């Protein structure tokens, strides 16, 4: 019954793998990192800003993909948690006088705490109910950003002094940029490490069937908490970097459009695919900046893109990459037509 070899096709398979290596996932990601690393050396300040924003969204989208794409939890809280990260890091600097390097991790910890406070009551909810509960949280968070004046500085938000990177001999913009790049690379690598481990397999098991997951001794509650925590870490770090990039925090950055944008990145990239989320984050930020000043067009465009992908390419970009590039392998992503 066990037949391993089909000799005639073996040499061809090897040759294909050799060529495919050049367009495989790892080399492609390495080239992407390299391009981002040299961007500040040859781009104008605006382009560096867009690159930095893209890196922050890479972190956000890869983080959301853990909860949405791997664990299959339809949560809309991530736009708000991104906001919590930005507010926490910003306010810790502005009002508590913490230096940025300390405000960022503490702000992330606060984001995780609030993320868990949302997750715990949501653990029993699934699908549409989870979506509704988390949309309610997102609206509540936005309301808090606007109306809790004494802490959040209200509708107008607040402005901070630029983060000081002179100790490293860097200008603020360059410093934030490379910090974002390093964190994005580390967090993407961490996501891959998690996905390939028993933890990643438990997340996918949870996504596919809670009953079957339990039958292999996966504790549903614990695994969900792990997923929510991880996603909150990514949102917190991204929020802190966002505050450091803009030096301004205003509530309207974290409205419903924010979560639509993040969802778009995960879906366009391909649910469950880390590389897909990262690539889609960069593409969508560049697209959004291209449509700058045309708010309506941005929103309609994103809506159409999301709808189009769901209808015609539910596997996302990564599905196309896998089909066209033989060297591209992508663990655990959920192919649309399988």
């Amino acid at each position, binding site marked *: 019954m066990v037949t391993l070899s089909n000799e005639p096709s073996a040499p061809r398979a090897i040759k294909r793998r050799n060529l495919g290596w050049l367009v495989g996932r790892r080399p492609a990601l390495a080239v992407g990192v390299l391009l981002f690393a040299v961007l500040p050396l040859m781009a104008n300040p605006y382009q560096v800003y867009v690159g930095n924003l893209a890196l922050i969204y890479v972190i956000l989208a890869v983080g959301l993909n853990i909860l949405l794409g791997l664990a299959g939890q339809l949560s809309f809280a991530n736009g708000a948690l991104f906001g919590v990260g930005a507010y926490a890091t910003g306010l810790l600097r502005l009002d508590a006088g913490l230096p940025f390097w300390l405000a960022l991790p503490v702000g992330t910890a606060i984001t995780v705490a609030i993320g868990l406070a949302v997750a715990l009551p949501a653990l029993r909810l699934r699908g549409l109910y989870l979506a509704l509960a988390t949309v309610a949280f997102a609206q509540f968070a936005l309301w808090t950003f606007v109306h809790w004046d004494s802490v959040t500085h209200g509708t107008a938000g607040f402005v901070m002094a630029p983060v000081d990177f002179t100790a490293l001999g860097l200008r603020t913009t360059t410093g934030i940029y490379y910090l974002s790049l390093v964190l994005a690379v580390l967090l993407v690598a961490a996501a891959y490490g998690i996905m390939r481990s028993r933890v990643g397999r438990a997340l996918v098991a949870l*996504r596919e069937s809670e009953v079957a997951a339990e039958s292999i001794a996966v504790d549903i509650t614990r695994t969900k908490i792990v997923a929510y925590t991880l996603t909150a870490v990514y949102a917190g770090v991204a929020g802190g970097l966002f505050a450091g990039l803009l030096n301004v925090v205003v509530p309207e950055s974290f409205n419903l459009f924010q979560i639509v944008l993040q969802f778009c990145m995960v879906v366009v990239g391909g649910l469950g695919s880390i590389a897909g989320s990262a690539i889609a984050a960069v593409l969508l930020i560049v697209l959004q900046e291209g449509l700058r000043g045309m708010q309506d067009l941005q929103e309609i465009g994103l809506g159409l893109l999301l709808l189009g992908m769901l209808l015609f390419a539910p596997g996302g970009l990564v599905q196309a990459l896998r089909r066209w590039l033989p060297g591209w392998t992508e663990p655990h992503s959920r192919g649309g037509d399988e």
Partner: protein
Amino acid sequence: MADLSIERLSLSFGGLAALSDVDIAVPAGEIRGIIGPNGAGKTTLLNVISGLVRPTEGEIRLDGQPLTRLKASEVAARGVGRTFQTSLLFKGMTVLENVMAGMHQGLRTSVLAAAVGLPGVLREERRARERAREALAFVGMLSFAERDGASLSFGQQRLVEIARSLVAEPKVLLLDEPAVGLSPPRVAELDELLRRIRDKRGITIIMVEHVIRLVMGVCDRITVLNSGRKIADGTPDVILADPFVKEAYLGKSSDADRA
């Protein structure tokens, strides 16, 4: 080897008595068949044993230890593995990854260790992959290791599910209609596989099955359920001869001899 005992088990869904007062004792190392017409409560019985459904009354013990108040994941962790009537392989994972997922309990890697990629993580993964390949070879599915689970036939998917349960080294294995859709030669292979699971791995097996030839061939004893009640319990010969069984099941049900 472990024994499983089910005592005075009852369960009702609303007004419907899905199980009433069921007593079953499965000694260690036995292959027990559960048969009965559609809707008799066979799947429900497996669901109660595996902790997915709480019984209204009764107790289930594994080697004397009660399982009845535990969560499903805890029951699995104590050594009760299972497969499902409709195959529940995890989509998006290869066959090998599916089997590795079954090792969840036995692996130690924490989220943090996995995120940082400590060297111990890679070692553990290598070992896990090796053991998953062994389990796939054991069920005769090794050549499908890198395939997508969804691309397999139902019969093949069920073999992978069995491998996924085996890597957790269960004491008791619950199988829900593993022979559905298998051709006669495949049924013979399954018969042989079940014996190997019991003999080589020392696993007690409880199998719900409609394919009478398999049940009569491989099971040491058979329990017959009808409308949630146990109506007979005995060796295959005794069951075949039992007039109640004939009436409730063998005589009436047209799919008793299918496949």
